[in-house]
């Protein structure tokens, strides 16, 4: 093989940038969709996405895991008698997503979402964002809760992310292990 010259590097660089741009475009589109749903319904908007490191956020195993999580989330809403008004889902460049409108006060919904995350084997990968009918986000800090911890160490996840404390490969390996274990487990349950 010929060694790759500067053009090859430049090509890879521009490919990487366009993948980032696709992820960012998807995130911005979802953000606008959330705001417009909040305005339309004047109710709490919940999104359920996955925290997947790296640029390949829409791989089949993640889509399957997200579908499994959504199935449980639907049962959770029913059990807790939290009324669901609107539901839409899809897979974009930044991974599988689901946007819901619920007839539950935003702060209460955030609390319930955290209960759900904590009860799920993939809880640390689940991102449930809650927005009130005026478009304001409700986070863990609004409930007096500490920020989420990193998947690898016990430091706040955001710090590790911004400081890049762990390699992308290490993070992806950890996430894939968790996701595979979850998918294997749900297959076993479907058996005879």
């Amino acid at each position, binding site marked *: 093989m010929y060694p790759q010259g500067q053009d090859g590097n430049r090509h890879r660089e521009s490919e990487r*940038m366009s993948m*980032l*741009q696709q992820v*960012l475009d998807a*995130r*911005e589109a*979802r*953000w606008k969709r959330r705001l417009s749903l909040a305005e339309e319904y004047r109710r709490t908007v919940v999104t359920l996405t996955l925290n997947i490191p790296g640029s390949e956020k829409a791989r089949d195993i993640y889509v399957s895991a997200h579908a499994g999580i959504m199935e449980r989330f639907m049962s959770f809403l029913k059990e807790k008698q939290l009324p669901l008004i609107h539901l839409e889902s899809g897979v974009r460049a930044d991974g599988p997503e689901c946007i819901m409108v619920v007839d539950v006060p935003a702060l209460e919904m955030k609390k319930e979402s955290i209960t759900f995350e904590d009860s799920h084997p993939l809880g640390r990968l689940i*991102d449930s*964002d809650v927005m009130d009918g005026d478009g304001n*986000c409700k986070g863990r800090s609004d409930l007096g809760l500490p920020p989420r911890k990193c998947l690898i160490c016990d430091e706040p996840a*955001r*710090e590790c*992310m*911004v*400081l890049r404390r762990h390699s992308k490969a290490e993070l992806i390996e950890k996430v894939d292990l968790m996701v595979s274990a979850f998918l294997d487990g749900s297959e076993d349950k479907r058996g005879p």
Partner: protein
Amino acid sequence: MEITKSVSAGSLESSDLLVTLGPAQNGNLDIIVESIVEKQFGRRIRNIAMDLLSGNDITEGMVRIQDKGALECTLRARMETAIERAKE
């Protein structure tokens, strides 16, 4: 060049940021940074934003950056999109 219209780029989802550009209030270039990692990165965010603005010859305007823990590549991409939209 001065910013004459209000535009935004990004989101307030985690690991992202929302950049809002608007007309200057007093002929200055003001940059407001609100970040969840302000202590560690506030100055760095401001410097990168300043570089990108001056690289695009923007000398007057109001810039607000609401950061939810975005990586530097995200900051740069969101700033560039916002600047493009302001120039349209």
